[in-house]
């Protein structure tokens, strides 16, 4: 029996395409974030608020990933920002190839900020680099304060944590300080924001940080 030593990363193909995406973002001076969370945490709502705040200051485009429907792309387009929908037809995450195909319909030369909204899932998207500068993980207070402990990979691989739906805290059995502490134990370098899309609390801080990163 012959043995062949190969030592190759299983997801090397995805990583290579992600690097091409990253090179294209960089040569066009586009800052890209990959927004990940479980379904229903408020990714699209945060994005709507973010666009409302930054639309006059930055040129923005959005790539929306969903298992079905173009509902989210329509929500974003309604705000006057170009949105490209990727429908994965059952696929539980975006891969670099899908983003690269979608990029054909994004005017990279004309924008400064590209937001990729991933499929709602805290497991699989953590393994797939899309070429983004940062992964932004959103967790909502209704999901409980142990989310980071249950899904450590996603929190370890993200640079930013947004704790959303803080207006609901008085009605929930969620200790937000504990939630933040759990996340920081897994990734001490996480930049943390606390937001509510209903009251608007925390959105200013998040948008100010994002704008500063884009203009860096």
């Amino acid at each position, binding site marked *: *029996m*012959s*043995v*062949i*030593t*190969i*030592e*190759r*990363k*299983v*997801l*090397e*193909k*995805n990583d290579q395409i992600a690097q091409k995406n990253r090179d294209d973002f960089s040569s066009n001076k586009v800052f890209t974030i990959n927004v990940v969370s479980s379904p229903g945490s408020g990714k699209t709502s945060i994005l709507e608020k973010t666009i409302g705040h930054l639309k006059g200051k930055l040129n923005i485009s959005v790539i929306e990933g969903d298992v079905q429907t173009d509902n989210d792309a329509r929500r974003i387009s309604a705000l006057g920002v170009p949105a490209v929908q990727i429908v994965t037809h059952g*696929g*539980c*995450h975006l*891969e670099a190839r899908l983003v690269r195909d979608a990029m054909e319909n994004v005017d990279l030369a004309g924008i400064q900020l590209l937001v990729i909204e991933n499929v709602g899932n805290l*497991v*699989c998207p*953590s*393994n*797939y680099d899309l070429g983004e500068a940062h992964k932004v993980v959103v967790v909502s207070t209704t999901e409980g304060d142990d989310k980071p402990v249950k899904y*450590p*990979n996603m929190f*370890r691989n993200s640079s930013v944590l947004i704790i959303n739906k803080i207006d609901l805290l008085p009605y929930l059995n969620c200790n937000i300080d504990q939630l933040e502490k759990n996340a*920081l*134990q*897994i*990734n*001490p370098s996480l930049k943390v924001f606390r937001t509510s899309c209903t009251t608007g609390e925390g959105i200013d801080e998040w948008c100010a940080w994002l704008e500063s990163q884009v203009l860096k």
Partner: protein
Amino acid sequence: MHEMSVAQNIIDIVIQYLPEDHAAGVKIVNLKIGKMSGIVPDSLEFSFRVIAADTPGLVDANLHMQFVPLIIRCKECKAESTLDEPFFVCPECGSVNVDTLSGTELQITEIELEDPPQEES
């Protein structure tokens, strides 16, 4: 459940190493799987079998997974520690200033080919 996609990636790599004359198929694919790789071994094995069964040269292939522990090195006290839980805190001095040494692997290390059939002399 991205194990199906991972299994497809494994097979796409492995078939590049099949002999051109298809004289021998793949018997074993050796993988390194880190504790923090996000892979469910049973799902990966199932997905691999489903795809391999329809792939010439891989019909009888088996996955062998070597699990790699999560090991960190503290940048403050230089201690190396194996972590049971993914809390990136040095158990020796409590610092969070740590590097990950292993545990994120998702790698093919070796493939073993069947012996080609002996020619009758």
